[in-house]
């Protein structure tokens, strides 16, 4: 068996020999590139890396990587990935899911993977639509989305993936954009560095069924005004010349947009991002253009022991305390002899 070459791997080394089968122009292509780039930079060996996905356009992802991969069933990737990780904690396990896969049929497994804090990187490609099944509304589709299953417009208030993750008790919650390569790779690096379940929502454009749904903050001309790149310990500033910021409304738990200089507002008035504050993360997750910027980056990170470590720690204890001899165990507490 040929070991992975000693020479540092490049992004190309993480491409499989399979032809990529997404629609031309699909945001998934850009994400694939960024993931391959990140893997190369992390330098984790291919053979120790496993990508687990559910079902959906996004979930075809593992086929296009040269690592180990498991394209499973709809919504169950987090549960299967947990099994992989608990059975062999040495492996570096990534989960790829979509807004339908992860939040419609798979919401329960996502909830429990997050609250248990299994050390997985969970990437949710949110295109606010069911791509593979030809464009029905998904749990993240905006109210009024017209689709084959909602000809008069969808009537389900959408769920916010990040708010959901925060409510579930996730200890790493971040957001990025398919085509924002530098930002995305950095977020992926952070997610990988985080010990425990790391949840990353990636806004992904479905050119066929939901084209341009994120334009309000991804379009070149508005991006600077409509995106706030949150960084821990730094003031929550945005705008072309970082002249705008978020201020905490005095005595209340609410945020306002302020412009530096206007009405004597200085940078000191601008709230400093504290990634360890869950309530702040929830507020940031809820902001939307046009009134507010879309906040991306690491909204929340507050590490705790990861599930597989605690589990195998307990088991190690038991092994230390009790004999591993099966034959002995078979005899149980009391036996008698017939001769």
């Amino acid at each position, binding site marked *: 068996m040929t070991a992975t070459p000693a020479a540092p791997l490049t992004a190309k080394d993480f491409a499989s020999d399979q032809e990529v089968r997404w629609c031309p122009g699909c945001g998934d292509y850009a994400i694939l590139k960024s993931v391959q780039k990140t893997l190369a930079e992390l330098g984790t060996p291919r053979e120790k890396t496993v990508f687990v996905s559910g079902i959906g356009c996004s979930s075809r992802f*593992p086929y296009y990587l040269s690592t180990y991969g498991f394209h499973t069933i709809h919504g169950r990737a987090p549960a299967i990935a947990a099994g992989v990780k608990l059975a062999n904690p040495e492996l570096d396990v990534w989960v790829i899911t979509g807004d339908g896969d992860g939040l419609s049929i798979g919401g329960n497994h996502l909830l429990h993977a997050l609250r248990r804090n299994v050390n997985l990187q969970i990437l949710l490609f949110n295109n606010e639509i069911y791509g593979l099944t030809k464009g029905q509304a998904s749990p993240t589709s905006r109210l009024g989305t017209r689709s084959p299953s909602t000809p008069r417009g969808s009537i389900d208030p959408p769920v916010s993936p990040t708010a959901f993750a925060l409510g579930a008790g996730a200890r790493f919650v971040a957001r990025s954009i398919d085509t924002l390569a530098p930002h995305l790779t950095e977020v992926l690096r952070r997610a990988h560095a985080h010990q425990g379940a790391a949840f990353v929502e990636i806004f992904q454009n479905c050119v066929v069924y939901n084209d341009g749904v994120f334009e309000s903050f991804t379009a070149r001309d508005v991006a600077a005004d409509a995106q706030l790149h949150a960084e821990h310990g730094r003031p929550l500033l945005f705008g072309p010349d970082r002249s705008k910021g978020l201020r905490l409304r005095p005595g209340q738990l609410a945020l306002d947009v302020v412009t530096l200089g206007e009405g004597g507002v200085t940078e000191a008035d601008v709230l400093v991002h504290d990634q360890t504050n869950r309530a702040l993360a929830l507020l940031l997750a809820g902001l939307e253009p046009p009134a507010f910027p879309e906040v991306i980056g690491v909204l929340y990170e507050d590490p705790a022991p990861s599930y597989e470590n605690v589990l195998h720690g307990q088991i190690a204890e038991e092994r230390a305390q009790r004999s591993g001899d099966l034959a002995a165990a078979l005899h149980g507490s009391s036996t008698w002899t017939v001769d």
Partner: protein
Amino acid sequence: MTSSAVAGAVSRAIRDTVVIRFSGDSGDGMQLTGTQFTMETALSGSDLSTFPDYPAEIRAPAGTTYGVSSFQIHFGAREILTAGDELDVLVAMNPAALVVNAGDLRVGGLIVADTGAFSRRNIEKAGLEGDPLEGELVRPFKVMKLDMTKLTADAVEPFGLGAKEALRCRNMWALGLMLWMYGRDKDVTVAWLEKKFAKAPAIAQANIAALNAGHAYGETVEMPSDVVGYTVARADLPPGVYRTVNGTEALAYGLLAGLRAVGLERLFFGSYPITPASPLLHVLANLRHLGVVTFQAEDEIAAICSAIGASYAGALGVTSSSGPGIALKTEALGLAIGVELPLVVINSQRAGPSTGLPTKAEQSDLFQAVYGRNGDAPVAVIAAASPSDCYDVGAEAVRIAVRHMTPVILLTDGYLANAAEPWVVPELEEVVPGAGRPGPGGNGGNGSFNPYQRDPETLARVWPVPGTPGLEHRIGGLEKHYDTGNISYDPENHARMTWARMEKVRRVADDIPEQQVEVGTAGGALAVVGWGSTYGPIRKAVSLSREEGLDVSHVHLRYLHPFPRNLGTLLQAYGRVLVPEKNTGQLVTMLRSTFLLPAEGMSKVTGKPFKVAEIRAAIRRALEAA
């Protein structure tokens, strides 16, 4: 410790076999009482079989009929195969227990009742007008009235317990009396009580005092003339080191023995609690030092999915549930079939459909196991016949799953899970490293690797494990190309893969023993064909019928899919084939379609085990009709 050791002064009558049922409120500790009586009885050298039976509610209101919890034990000097058709002794701790169980007592049988619990209130709670101990109900039986409540209170008085705690010792008093009656020792129980209540010595001592008092009562006190102590001789069991084991423990050990035999380090057990499957989770959660990882998942789907993930990662994935939970695993099981990973799925069957009767056993999930999936989705299906058989079947399930790279469904039921019997502690064979486990496969070169390379003999695919350099590969539920393992929508290829999956499982039949005849001859007038926990009653019924000179044999199936290769020929050699099942007729349907055999079904869907008498009657009818 032979019975002589405690036989004492009184003269003892000889009994060949005895059936006792301890019965009382859910809160009365009947299960513990029965378990201890079982232990003492096993140690005294009897063969035995037990049948715990309790309600679905945790603690239904005291005194109600639906709150009654019972433990039945059948023991004796002969081979014991069932928990017994009829009771010789019923220990009734309250009126509800009496009314619920009296019907199962043989005419002339003995009722031991705690009159202290037959208060007006309890009698009403049991839905009765007057005291049943005075009425028609007990007319056909011997009745031994004892105020156990008071006798216990007196016995534990020195330990200054509250009335409630004191009352809790009643079951030990009753146990003491029964141990005396059948000349059993009580040392193990004493030791067990000391350990159990180590943190509360007063309670321990009080229980022991109650136990002793009950025992002494029989020993010393003037008993009704028609009630004496009994001696039950040792059964001449094959020599060996014995312990008692219930089906759940045996199954857990069997899985581990199987794991060891295929040279794997880690068994990953993903499960979600459900009656009556939970005990396996509980037992395995205490065996993590033996290479088990237990994971209580958020639901049954996550449970099987985590097990599939574990198998993908190179451990052996095992999951366990009961009917409704198994139903939820169906889709994921299809994935395991599609990606051809080893997996053991254990179904502790209970009475259905839907929630049904969670604490009652049935065999009605056979169709689900064999046929219950979308697509042409074959798996191997095997079933356990007795508590100790659970060990062999557990090991066999692991062997088949790993050697053939296939999911295996192991069928057991709530009866087997809880029933206990003496068990010869098995020897573990030497393990040949790597044997019985498919290799990781070879790399086709230039990064292309086909995870579906097959063993020409078994058609099992290779088992490349993440972490291994050079074998990186992608698998999934979409159809894959036979020669490359890549996604393929080619029609002919789908047909080829479909038949490969079918044939792979069919070939399990070449790797299992031919079907043997349990009792009787290979061919004859009548075969009684069973599977699973009906083993005991069928075997007993057939043996007795043969003693009567009837031409009947017992064939018991462990392998339900695929069937043993000789099964067709074997069954064709009988004039008639009778198939008793605790369902409306599932195995019988499979035998008819597979072998075009006019097999006849015999259904019992009360959630209770077959009685030997019921099967004997059916045998007689079948032979007369023939």
